[in-house]
């Protein structure tokens, strides 16, 4: 590591970690629930997640 990550920046990340991690889990879970409602199977949802995970919808 050649950059100084900065103590404050690292500490902020650890504080945010639990919130942000939980947010990701909730989003994935919510998408799965929604797609179940739409009668898609879970396997397809996982494949879609994988395909879309590196694409931003911009």
């Amino acid at each position, binding site marked *: 590591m050649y950059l100084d990550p900065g103590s*404050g*920046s690292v500490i902020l*990340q650890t504080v945010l*970690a639990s919130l942000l991690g939980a947010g990701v889990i909730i989003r994935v879970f919510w998408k799965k629930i929604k797609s179940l409602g739409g009668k898609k199977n879970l396997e397809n949802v996982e494949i879609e997640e994988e395909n879309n995970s590196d694409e931003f919808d911009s």
Partner: protein
Amino acid sequence: MSLTVDRLGASFRDPSGFLFHRNGQLFRQVNNVYKEDYDLLMSSGLYEKLTQKGWLVSHVEVDASQFVSEQSYKFLQPEKIKFISYPYEWSFSELKDAALQTLRIQKTALQAGMTLKDASAYNMQFHNVAPVLIDTLSFTTYIEGQPWVAYRQFCQHFLAPLALMSRVDIHLSKLLQIYIDGIPLDLTSKLLPRLSRLNGGLLTHIHLHAYAQKKYSATSETHTKQRAQVSKQAMIGLIESLKSTVMKLTWKPHETDWAEYYQATNYSDKAFEHKKRLVSELIHEVSPKTLWDLGANNGEFSRLGIDLEDCSIISSDIDPGAVELNYLTCKKEHIKNILPMVIDLTNPSPAIGWANTERQSLFQRGPVDLCLALALIHHLAISNNVPLQDISNLLAQSGRKLIIEFVPKEDSQVKRLLASREDIFIDYHEDGLIRAFSQDFLLEKQIPIEGTCRTVYLFSRK
């Protein structure tokens, strides 16, 4: 015996390797200390995935035994980027797209077990009108639990200027020129309006971030490292949060300004079409490999050169709104050989950074084969009092050939500029222009634009 190489001025911070020129070609030395990371980048499929998408500059490994040293592991020849531009020269959407591309790359890297060890805006360059990462050595092995080392840099290089441009004033992107490692977050926090704290992303990544930096500035690094634990899920959450914050930041010029960009003021349709045909014919006659349209406005005349194969076009203007419109048009129409840039010709980008060699001045990055200066000279000569001879000197530094549209005093645009001031410009007329430019250039053509008092000139540098 190995030859010593001169590394590029900007290539000194990262011990993983450096860039150097040899016989007009660009090479990258990968050092032994980066061996494991480089091998993982190439073997994990990450390099292939990113280069296929056009997100990372491609390279070929070359045999360069003459350069081998104790430090060196491999030598790469990267794909050539035609023109290097800097974030303080980009429009709002150019900086925003570069920010989002950095986050996409980081997310893709995490999936392959790697992470970006830096997130410098200078590592992003525009290639075929899309931002591409040019630093192949930016990736390192991801260790679960480690925080994102480049989080602070991302916020300083991308989020802070975007927030200031969007929420305070578009011209604040120029702060990047003063602060070479990005705009300090405490300064950004001070400059942003109080209401920006209501935006969760800005509250977290700018205001709380600035507060945390101040509060923990005396905390020892080892202590921080021992405590820091950020799961992969949380890291993805952080990237998503930054993405969402960046995407919500918007900027567009006032609607009336946008309308003005479309109007070719002071022209009848017929005269405008004649000017377009004339300039197009001259551009195609010169058939340049590099073209710089100075004072390009929304880039309409730059786009006359899009059918020229392999011609790289720089389309610059002082007005961030015009450049924004130019970039959005190029994106929408998939025009790949134009780079819109915000440039103030009366105060162009200087050479900055360590020893003034990290970032090149605008003119160090030239000259080009052909310069366009359409309806520009009167702004420089009359609004900025630059003598015609000095304008000629500057343009002679910039291009080998030159197309000028001269707007005389009889034209309403110049009358407007002179309305509020004394006319001290006794040499500002066609003969004065030819006389001043004849010291640097040969006059090749002189064609009046039908239905106007304006004239188009083609000059060739002596």
